[in-house]
């Protein structure tokens, strides 16, 4: 009887992880049986039934089938990985190529990596290179700096704005909310080029009124514009899971509204915020079309200089940059996985001790 009461009061589920897990198992049994009454069967009690079935076949047949399936799986995944990683490998080789001509491999050299940090020093002591190459590398440096300036600032700004807007949308009535979400989805679903054109037009109109040139400001606004919806969309589902009374209770207990927001709501929607931030970052760092139309000539990011500058005026250091970026992120991912793994193991140890 006790457990039933607990489950019917959904808001308490948040507080205890254990109850949540239990509930999940039960919940699915409810769906399968098409019944609304809760059954207290544990999932483990059902498992033996499935395990008994395949025993009729000889073990060797079963094993060979399993090995075959594993091989097939590995082939499929490595085919996809091959398709995805071919360009990355090409870029890797181009980045360690000593020649300026990126289609001919002459010798191993790390000078393009050096050129990323100090073009005058690393690209100077080479007979093949002229000062134009140093100039190109400097322009690349500038573009990288600009890419990260825009990406980081647009990610931060759109995350903060996204939280506020998501709170606003969440508080609306059902119908209004649906309409806002539809509007919110427009930049996501819209083709990049159409977004770019519309933004370019509105910037030209406004900027010609105020005599501002396209550049950092227009690019920043457009990056915020297309990353905001992702942030809003990843926060909204988390917000709808929170108990509305929690915030009011905090305010009633003497919290200032801002503090209540920080202490009650933000922690509850943290995973959504991180997800949104990640989306905003991903969209912004690799954007080409929208930046191209909204002021790329003056404030180019890396994509735009790859598109706008041809062969000689594009420094091969860009390959070094991309390789560093790719493998840097790979390291972060692996590191994060190891961290999570270790954390889980610690937890397990703790649980065992208890």
């Amino acid at each position, binding site marked *: 009887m006790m457990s039933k009461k607990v489950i019917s009061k959904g808001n308490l589920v948040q507080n205890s992880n254990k109850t949540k897990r239990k509930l999940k198992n039960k919940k699915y049994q409810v769906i399968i049986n098409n019944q609304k009454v809760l059954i207290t069967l544990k999932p483990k009690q059902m498992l033996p039934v499935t395990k008994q079935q395949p025993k009729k076949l000889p073990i060797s047949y079963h094993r060979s089938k399993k090995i075959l399936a594993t091989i097939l799986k590995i082939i*499929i995944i490595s085919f996809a990985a091959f398709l995805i990683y071919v360009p990355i490998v090409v870029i890797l080789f181009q980045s360690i190529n000593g020649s300026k001509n990126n289609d001919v491999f002459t010798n191993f050299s790390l000078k393009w990596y050096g050129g990323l940090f100090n073009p005058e020093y690393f690209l100077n002591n080479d007979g093949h290179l002229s000062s134009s190459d140093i100039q190109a590398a400097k322009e690349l440096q500038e573009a990288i700096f600009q890419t990260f300036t825009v990406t980081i600032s647009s990610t931060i700004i759109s995350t903060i704005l996204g939280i506020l807007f998501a*709170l606003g949308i969440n*508080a609306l009535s059902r119908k209004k909310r649906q309409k806002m979400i539809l509007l919110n989805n427009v930049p996501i679903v819209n083709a990049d080029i159409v977004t770019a*054109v519309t933004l370019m037009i509105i910037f*030209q109109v406004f900027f010609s009124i105020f005599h501002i040139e396209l550049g950092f400001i227009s690019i920043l606004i457009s990056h915020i514009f297309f990353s905001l919806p992702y942030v809003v969309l990843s926060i909204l589902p988390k917000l709808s899971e929170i108990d509305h009374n929690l915030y009011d209770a905090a305010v009633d207990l003497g919290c200032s509204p801002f503090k209540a927001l920080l202490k009650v709501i933000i922690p509850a929607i943290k995973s959504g915020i991180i997800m949104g931030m990640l989306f905003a970052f991903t969209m912004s760092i690799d954007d080409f079309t929208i930046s191209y139309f909204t002021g790329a000539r003056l404030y180019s990011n890396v*994509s735009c200089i790859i598109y706008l500058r041809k062969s000689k005026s594009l420094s091969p250091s860009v390959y070094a940059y*991309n390789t560093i970026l790719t493998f840097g992120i790979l390291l972060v991912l692996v590191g994060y996985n190891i961290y999570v793994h270790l954390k889980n193991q610690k937890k397990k140890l703790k649980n065992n001790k208890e």
Partner: protein
Amino acid sequence: MNRFKKMAIPYLIWMIILVLIPIVILIIMSFQRTKGIKIFEGTFNNNFKIIFSKDVMQRLWLSFIYSAVVTVFCLIIAYPVAYIIARANFKHRFLVLSFLILPMWSNTLLRTKGIASLFMEGNIFTSLFEKIGITLPTLNWYATPMGVITGMISMYLPFMILPIYNSLEKIDKSLYDASDDLGANAFKTFWKVTFPISLKGITTGIILVFLPCATGFGVAEQLGENGLIGTYIKTQFDNEATYGVGALVSLIILVIIIGALFIVGKVDKEGETLL
């Protein structure tokens, strides 16, 4: 929490300024031969005549065919991959997945440039292998449909794998057991249980792959294909006399997309499909 209601208003204004007003300007522009954005100085021009010319239609058709083929191939490759990873009893599933979607963070145009260079004679691999005495065959796929499609698949595959994996991962394992218990075979379990649940992920994947393929110009141009609609729009906005034509083509694309959005909105009202 109702006091937050006010915060939706600035967002609405922001959206109106950056979405609705430009669309109105686009509509006005599309009937004009403009002088740049100066819509009050433009003169009336029947841009529809240009839009419905064989040339534009051919570009639209080509864009559609290319992106349809790319989407289908991406789906065929991505679904098994996502399915295998999602159902594996492997501990580090997430690591394998992140390995596959990692290139999303490296520069798309540069990767396209890289793969495009492979399709030409005299690329970095042929010169590398020449050093050890092996002559690699030349693909000569540059600017051919084969090369464009292969390049695009390579670029957009991660965008298909991720959403499908997300939707498959959410399925509770006990659901499979239940289906088994109720007497369904493996195929039936897949068709009746797994596939319908993963439909949302597939929709997202199709949106994420099809749209940029059909309307983008950066990737296609790097692969040597200048005949798509994205390039057309771009060139129209290069010349201020043809802003009107560009506006009209953009509007047509917008209408098609809004239609698609409407259908998605009918199926899923909270808009969760997209993420």
